[in-house]
């Protein structure tokens, strides 16, 4: 039986070592020299991929030759072949994965949900810094709402840092930066002066907050010079989200990286295009997993979860595409995988579980609680 180290105990030990200061705590340095947070477990980091946009099992683990990388994860990890979900719209159904609560949200709602997210639970319970919890997305403005919810006990101060791949790392934005010219780095002297003026306005951010803002700023400017901007094709948004996740993971080695995909929804108009998106996303998933396996620090300490938010209709529509609204099992059940050092290998769980079970499971993996989540820890996962 694993024993969770309580946050209080962790803080006590840190205080004894004399490394506990407010700025250290706020910076997320609690996650500094990473160790598993639950005794007896090896997992230090989690990657949670919402393979969203509506993806049926038939095109994933139902046809493993089409998704060799996901299939490989399944062979080396645990397959959940019947995850119950609901057609709550992409926005609500993906949000449900991150909150552990079925969230009926409008399809084009552009507001935060009422419930805390996985990221908030982890940051509040375990003291993770903002830089420890990242999310990369593919769906633009709407998906940035997954950063945090509106629950009074959680909220923005425990939110994840969210980056939308296609929104930021695109040729137009890069072109605009090139046209106006990149901002000049600030000299230390001028930075100190600016900080003094900010304090004069009573608006200086805390050291930890400023450090995180600067880190994000630096990362964005650096990433714009890498290849992400040039990614194109039917799954460009998804591929960018997965590429960012890979880069973030290998550069910052954060505790949690969430990824939200979306391009599979092209299926409404074309089954073939949808199949191609699924295939390409599997390739990008493979690159992410390869980066984890190649990194000595990540290899044996990172868990990966992959699951769609819901499936799609059983039959093609009149455009030879696939909608989502027929109430079939193809829509309401999806297949997911979990791969990591603490999980069983080559195991398949065939009983009905739910997509809302992933948040409580990941919280449990880290020794945190998800009190508002309605899901349960996934049965059959741990070795």
């Amino acid at each position, binding site marked *: 039986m694993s024993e969770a180290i309580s946050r209080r105990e962790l803080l006590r030990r840190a205080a004894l070592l004399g490394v506990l200061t407010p700025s250290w705590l706020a910076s997320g340095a609690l996650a500094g020299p990473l160790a598993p947070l639950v005794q007896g477990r090896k997992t230090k980091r989690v990657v949670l991929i919402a393979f969203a946009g509506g993806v049926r099992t038939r095109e994933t683990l139902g046809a493993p030759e089409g998704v060799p990388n996901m299939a490989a994860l399944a062979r080396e990890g645990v397959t959940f072949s019947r995850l119950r979900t609901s*057609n*709550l*719209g992409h926005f609500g159904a993906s949000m449900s994965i991150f909150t552990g609560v079925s969230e*009926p949200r*409008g*399809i*084009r709602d*552009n507001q935060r949900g009422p419930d805390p997210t996985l990221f908030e639970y982890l940051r509040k319970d375990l003291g993770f810094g903002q830089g420890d919890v990242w999310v990369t*997305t593919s769906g*633009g*403005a*709407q998906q*940035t*709402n997954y*950063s*945090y919810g509106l629950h009074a006990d959680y909220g*923005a101060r425990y*939110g*994840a*840092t*969210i*980056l*939308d*791949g*296609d*929104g*930021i790392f*695109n040729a*137009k*934005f890069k*072109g*605009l930066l090139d046209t*106006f*010219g*990149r*901002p000049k780095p600030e*000299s230390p*002297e*001028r930075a100190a*002066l*600016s900080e*003094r*003026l*900010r304090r*004069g*306005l009573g*608006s200086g951010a805390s050291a930890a907050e400023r450090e995180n*803002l600067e880190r*994000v*700023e630096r990362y*964005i*400017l650096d990433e714009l010079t890498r290849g992400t901007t040039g990614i194109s094709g039917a799954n460009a948004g998804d591929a960018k989200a997965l590429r960012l996740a890979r880069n973030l993971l290998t550069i910052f080695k954060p505790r949690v990286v969430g990824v939200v995909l979306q391009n599979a*929804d092209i299926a*409404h*108009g074309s089954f073939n295009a949808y199949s191609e998106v699924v295939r390409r996303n599997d390739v990008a998933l493979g690159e992410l997993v390869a980066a984890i396996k190649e990194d000595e620090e990540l290899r044996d300490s990172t868990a990966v979860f992959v699951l769609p938010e819901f499936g799609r209709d059983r039959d093609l*529509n009149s455009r030879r*595409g696939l*909608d*989502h*609204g027929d109430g079939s099992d193809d829509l309401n059940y999806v297949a997911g995988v979990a791969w990591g050092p603490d999980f069983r290998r080559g195991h398949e769980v065939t009983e009905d579980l739910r997509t809302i079970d992933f948040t409580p499971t990941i919280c449990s993996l880290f020794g945190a609680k998800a009190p508002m989540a309605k899901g349960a820890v996934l049965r059959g996962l741990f070795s």
Partner: protein
Amino acid sequence: MALHETAADARAHAAPTSAPTLRRQDLADDARPKSVAAPALPLDARRLRTLFLDLLGRPPFPAERAEWLGRGAHELCDALLGVPAFWRHWLDEQLYYFLLIDNFRPVGQGVESILTELAAGRYSVRDAVHRIALLPSFDQRNPGADTFVTVVMEQLVGMTVQLSQRELEIGKGAYDGRSGVFLGAPAANQSDVVAVAANHKVAARHFLAREYERLIDAPIERRELAQAARAYHKDPLGYLATLRGWLVSEAYTARIERGKALPNRLFVSALFVDVLDREPTAEEAETLRGALDGLGDSRPLRAVVVRMLLDSGQVELPAKASLADPTAWVAAQFERLLGRTATSDELRVFVEAFHEPACNPRTILQVLLSDPAYHRY
């Protein structure tokens, strides 16, 4: 130019943009200011900035500030409500509400004709919303019967579709060409689904409630909503009068005092006007809005954009030595950018810093533009 506030008409400098800016000839003669008595709601720097942002999606240019400061909010509302630039901004806000942005942003005659008809008074806002939902972009954004009908029910009527599965199924049938009674009216095709929803009595309530919340940043009271919805349902062309009432209400005054987060799309326009003395082109606006919307917390990228513009060489910054009265200059920047008077302590800190060799006007502007108060309005 903006930083000196000496230009006769800053709009004359504005770079070409596809978005029309406010022109005097847009104003009806009877909307022009006449009164010289002390106005009931005098336009101080903050109210003026907020009203311009809410009505035109940008802060005032220097000449407009000079023209309107100290006059009445009523007059300004009369002058701006219904001009083409107002409708352009209103339409942008509606397109954003429907998430018709990025690749789904409608361009071309379809959307331009909505603006033309609104400005000519031939379309009501209800007609405009109806037309938006008939644009090809709306269809592409919401493909398939289930998504399309769901979004129409949610976005136009404000329904929770999970609680109205029967109506959804009827609407999907109509979308596919099967006749049925959808939301109480006959519908036999996709166009009917939109028409029924757009003209539904509940859609009036939903529209007014979300518009009120957009402007007042608080939910509308039930009784006020019922009253406004009745009037709107009967005469949707009267919407501007309702809007005017909201903008000169105590609730709007309270909202100005509370402040409201400046959305990315308004931040981009505000920054261009404040720093470059022109509105962004449509492409600049959409590209930057898209990038900023790509972050859960856009502050780091806003900081990049601020520095990008300040360092671009396109800002006519006054030379430090040319500012004979740094205190007055700093005070003017507080008024202009933050919409408030600087405190004596703030002035002291800023002016002391200004005299240091490392400090220059750019430094002062960068600090003010990155202050949280600049990102609220």
